[in-house]
């Protein structure tokens, strides 16, 4: 009888931890210390164990959630994102005096939504998961209630998020009208039968779904909210949402567009081609002009979305494996970078201008070294993992015949190196400006450990990627 629950056990663990965090906060005496963060770690470890047990089992729950290896790989990425985010968040929560129960509960609920989105095989469930994760993230963006910038960023994110959800839902309505079902399997079969006579309803359905996804993965021209939300949120939250949301959204994107809507690929591949090219170019070009490190990384994250779209448009199995590996590498790298921004922030000062990083090498040599690793990995330098990830994405694109797109990708990553290197040069070669110099705080142990672990992971994935690449390649077969 409980067999149908197997596929959702990872989400249940995380949700339970979220509820426990909420209840613990409600029953906490004022001033009494309570380990609410570690509760989340317990839930995530439960999720990790159940993910490992579900591997290769292909469990299905209620016909709408399938724990196939593709979904489980993304779940594993999300667990890594969750653990690193909890560790990076701890000092922020202490420093800003944020409500602990709310903060961790929202983070865990949103993680549960992301996991559901990665494993859902029904359009309605994908929509519900999207809302679960988004609603929690909107609140997390504005969690610093005394900050006006936080409120503005949260509002912009909420407004555009709600707006795009309506488009996404309208797309689902047309898919339902065309096929009489929201289940990806049946949608795929019926779409294949109708593929020869594509009418206006099909175009509307695909177009509206595409707009919804493009908003969530912040593809140009639907990226306007990204830099604002990323700058306004506390850096620990930014690290969490820039990686987790992207992983979950791309998992669902691949599932919907490369399985259910694959019969219509002739109709949408050109549009995604243009989106990918525009996203890579604009993300990089505008990134060059930024003076705030957070906004620079926001545009860099837009550009990275473009590389993932490039893999999506290629559409073959190599590309799907490349998406998984890229998401893992991008998640760990970006979390590490935002972790460093987060520990260098003080209560009154964001310290996020590029000039604030001048001379970091002389004051915090380890942090400077780690930041160098992350930025080089984002730029795609060997021997960092980012190089291998980009290599596979471009190889998949060339293999599928999208040579021009691959060339645009390579050119934009060369340009992007300029703004990553600018920070590195700043850290090592400029002396800190004596007048505007703010004293940077000491690094908290837990967050420091998370940063070092992220750096070790990207070094490992850069030097010995074979095993993880094989896993990623093996998990894309039999994706529904």
């Amino acid at each position, binding site marked *: 009888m409980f067999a149908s629950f197997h596929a959702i056990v990872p989400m249940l663990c995380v949700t339970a931890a979220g509820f426990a965090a909420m209840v613990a906060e409600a029953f906490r005496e004022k001033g009494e210390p309570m380990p609410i963060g570690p509760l989340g770690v317990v839930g995530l470890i439960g999720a990790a164990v159940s993910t490992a047990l579900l591997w290769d089992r292909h469990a299905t729950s209620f016909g709408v959630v399938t724990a196939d290896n593709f979904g489980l790989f993304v779940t594993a990425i999300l667990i890594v994102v969750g653990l690193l985010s909890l560790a990076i968040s701890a000092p922020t929560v202490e420093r800003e005096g944020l409500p602990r129960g709310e903060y961790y509960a929202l983070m865990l609920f949103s993680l549960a939504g992301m996991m559901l989105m990665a494993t859902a095989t029904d359009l309605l469930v994908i929509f519900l998961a999207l809302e679960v994760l988004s609603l929690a993230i909107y609140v997390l963006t504005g969690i610093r209630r005394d900050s006006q910038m936080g409120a503005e*960023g949260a509002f912009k994110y*909420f407004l555009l998020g*709600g707006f795009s959800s*309506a488009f996404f839902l309208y797309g689902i309505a047309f898919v339902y009208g065309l096929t009489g079902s929201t289940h990806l399997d049946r949608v795929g079969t019926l779409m294949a039968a109708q593929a020869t006579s594509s009418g206006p309803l099909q175009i509307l359905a695909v177009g509206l779904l595409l707009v919804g996804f493009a908003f969530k993965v912040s593809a140009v021209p639907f990226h306007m909210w990204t*830099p604002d939300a990323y700058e306004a949120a506390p850096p620990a939250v930014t690290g969490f949402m820039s990686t987790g949301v992207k992983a979950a959204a791309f998992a669902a994107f691949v599932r919907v567009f490369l399985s259910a809507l694959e019969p219509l690929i002739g109709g949408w591949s050109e549009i995604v081609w243009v989106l990918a090219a525009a996203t890579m170019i604009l993300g990089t070009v505008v990134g060059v002009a930024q003076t705030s490190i957070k906004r620079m990384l926001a545009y860099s994250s837009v550009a990275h979305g473009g590389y993932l779209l490039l893999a999506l448009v290629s559409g073959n199995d190599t590309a799907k494996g490349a998406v998984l590996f890229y998401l893992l590498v991008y998640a760990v790298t970006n979390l590490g970078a935002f972790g460093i921004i987060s520990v260098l922030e003080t209560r009154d000062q964001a310290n996020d201008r590029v000039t604030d990083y001048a001379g970091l090498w002389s004051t915090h040599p380890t942090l400077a070294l780690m930041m160098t690793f992350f930025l080089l990995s984002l730029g795609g330098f060997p021997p960092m993992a980012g190089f291998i990830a980009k290599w596979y994405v471009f190889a998949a694109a060339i293999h599928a015949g999208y040579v021009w797109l691959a060339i645009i990708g390579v050119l934009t990553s060369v340009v992007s190196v300029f703004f990553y290197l600018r920070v590195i040069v700043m850290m090592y070669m400029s002396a800190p400006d004596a007048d505007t110099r703010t004293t940077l705080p000491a690094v908290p142990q837990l967050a420091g450990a998370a940063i070092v672990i992220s750096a070790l992971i990207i070094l490992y994935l850069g030097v010995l990627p074979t095993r993880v690449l094989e896993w990623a390649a093996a998990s894309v077969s039999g994706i529904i």
Partner: protein
Amino acid sequence: MPTLTHYLILSAVLFAIGTAGVFLRRNVITILLSIEIMLNAVNLTFVAFGRALGSVDGQIIVFFVMTVAAAEAAVGLAIVITLFRHRESLNPEAFTMLKW
């Protein structure tokens, strides 16, 4: 006798009104209402398709959407309240701390 096409056109018009409202209105509460109009236009589409297909799925989906819309309104209004406390204004043009 209204047919499926009539319902679809009606919901498309509602959706367009909602979309236009998000872009044109200068009050954040009205903008939130416009998003609700868009969601309800989608609900109408679901019900119309469900009736045309002879299945109740469309109507069941509407219940889920209504729940989501309620949750979204709660979160949205809470964010608007924090925003209002900082600026004492509901005009989105007043919120200009974040630019490009």
